[in-house]
């Protein structure tokens, strides 16, 4: 049993890049994901478009709505993972609301994701308390399991998230939804410290991070900096070339690059 994501984090602090599958179309979303890795992104987080994305701000909502309107189907998520892992070696996580996984079949989804070379799942609306089936399936297929931790979580809940996550635990930097913000919330560092205190080895920090400076700041205490909306916006405004440039700028925030 080995975690693809932990193996990557053992090599050094990581830039984790999010893009939704199927935006602006399937082929270009795969090209953009590959370009991210070639531009310094260490771990990919591919968003599965979903009709009711309650953790997402407008930029990601609009992109995933376009993907759905163009006919995104769930098997394409597995297919995207397969195509990307054939071309680049970075670990690929899927970020998915949980109902699509339930309807696909939790065990089957895990099996197909593992067979496609995927690293695991980030589950924004699945708390460990409701996750027995996914925990069993991820154990069975040796997949990473990223649960969220919030500034509002009690220490007891943080400990539970840390104990049941594999790969990293996702520290939500601020009370809010995805989207760029001018400053990283001071709550982020406090949360990471609290997670360390309950035993977290690997912590990814996300929500609101959009510049190289913010990446550098977050990586001074976290193991991974997760960037989403800023990349989606670049892809929307300027295509694959633009999102690659944005990724390069973000990658300058990594300690090895500075």
């Amino acid at each position: 049993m080995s975690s693809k994501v932990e193996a990557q984090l053992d090599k050094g602090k990581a830039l984790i890049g999010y893009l939704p599958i199927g935006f602006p179309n399937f082929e270009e979303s795969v090209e953009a994901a590959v370009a991210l890795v070639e531009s310094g992104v260490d771990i990919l987080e591919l968003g599965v478009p979903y009709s009711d994305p309650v953790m997402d701000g407008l930029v990601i909502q609009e992109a995933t709505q376009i993907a759905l309107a163009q006919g995104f189907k769930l098997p394409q998520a597995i297919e995207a993972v397969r195509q990307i892992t054939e071309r680049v070696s970075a670990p690929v996580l899927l970020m998915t609301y949980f109902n699509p996984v339930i309807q696909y079949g939790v065990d089957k989804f895990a099996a197909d994701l593992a067979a496609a070379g995927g690293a695991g799942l980030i589950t924004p609306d699945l708390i460990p308390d409701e996750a027995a089936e996914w925990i069993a399936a991820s154990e069975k297929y040796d997949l990473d399991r990223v649960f969220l931790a919030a500034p509002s979580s009690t220490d007891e809940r943080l400990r539970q998230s840390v104990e049941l996550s594999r790969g990293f635990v996702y520290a939500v930097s601020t009370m809010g939804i995805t989207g760029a913000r001018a400053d990283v919330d001071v709550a982020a560092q406090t949360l990471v410290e609290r997670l360390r205190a309950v035993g977290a080895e690997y912590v990814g920090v996300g929500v609101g991070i959009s510049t190289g400076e913010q990446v550098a700041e977050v990586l001074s205490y976290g193991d991974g900096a997760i960037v989403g909306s800023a990349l989606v916006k670049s892809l929307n405004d300027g295509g694959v070339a633009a999102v690659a440039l944005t990724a390069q700028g973000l990658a300058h925030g990594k300690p090895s690059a500075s």
Partner: protein
Amino acid sequence: MALRDELGPYFGEYGGRFVPESLIAALDELSAAYELAKLDPSFQAELADLHRTYTGRPSIITEVPRFAVHAGGARIILKREDLNHTGSHKINNVLGQALLAKRLGKTRIIAETGAGQHGVASATAAALFGLECVVYMGEVDTVRQALNVARMRLLGATVIPVTTGSKTLKDAINEALRDWVTNVDNTHYLLGTVAGPHPFPSMVRDFHKIIGEEAREQVLALTGQLPTAVAACVGGGSNAIGIFHAFLDDPEVALYGFEAAGRGVDTPEHAATLTMGRPGVLHGARSYMLQDEDGQTVESHSISAGLDYPGVGPEHSWLKDLGRAHYRPITDVEAMDALRLLSRTEGIIPAIETAHGLAGALQLGKELGPEAIILVNNSGRGDKDMETAAKYFGILDGVEQ
């Protein structure tokens, strides 16, 4: 265990909490405050006082014999939630939750609304308690329920039209959840039906169960027996569970929920979640829902904004699987016919939501025969629907079609 004693978080395999971790602290805080309030005589006394002096409870029952002629002669009795202050059952839950919000020290409440009745009730409670109030409402619904938008604004609430997704109730709930994730420190999410993550389904049910408790006594006093059947419309399911609850452990009383069939359950344009859906996770709970094979929520359709929702509360999913309650679809046309019939035979104009339950009662009467006594939750009044009804019946210019 009595069915009435089910407290959540699970109703059989339904319910639970499928929400971002950021909300768990607030849900725990709310659960704890509610558990305390339930046992606190001063909370119960304050709520009972509001019911009596503000809402106008107990609401009366009205037997409607001229309407019942069209239901095979069965006796039909309406529980008049339409006579509550603000015009529907929604106020029962709103006052309970607003009192809790005050106890929690929250200064701001947010709400979603479809028909606008829950939004109006929330804006009303906010005015009464001096709280800031923001109401999310699908853009489509702000048009078809424009009168209620004006009422909310007059009451001092901010109404935010939601332009994402299907621009109806489902998307209003998404927006309210996003607001709550961001502002949970000072904000209470005053959810308007028995859906959502625990503790909402059981808490909202508890605030509405007074409907059935009163009606059970009132029907016994009027007829000397329990009703043969209890009927209600089902959107998220709050008025239905409210009137069902007191009868759950009376096996001789049949329970019927009537969902919106829109243009028909053989078309894609309906909101018949329990009839046509299958279990999944939506808005924080596992329950029946309308979805495609990938688990994407399917857009619902109903002429009634308050029933235009592709999900339903988890307790109803449980009652359906147990066979304790039965759920049937009612089309737009059947509902509008019933709306006009009750207006013309009894001088009571019901909400379009409510009319689905009335149309169901007409069916039940014919099936159960003249000995039957059917109790219907008359969940709301139709004032808000006059524009839709006037257009539907072509009576705006005085010419009926």
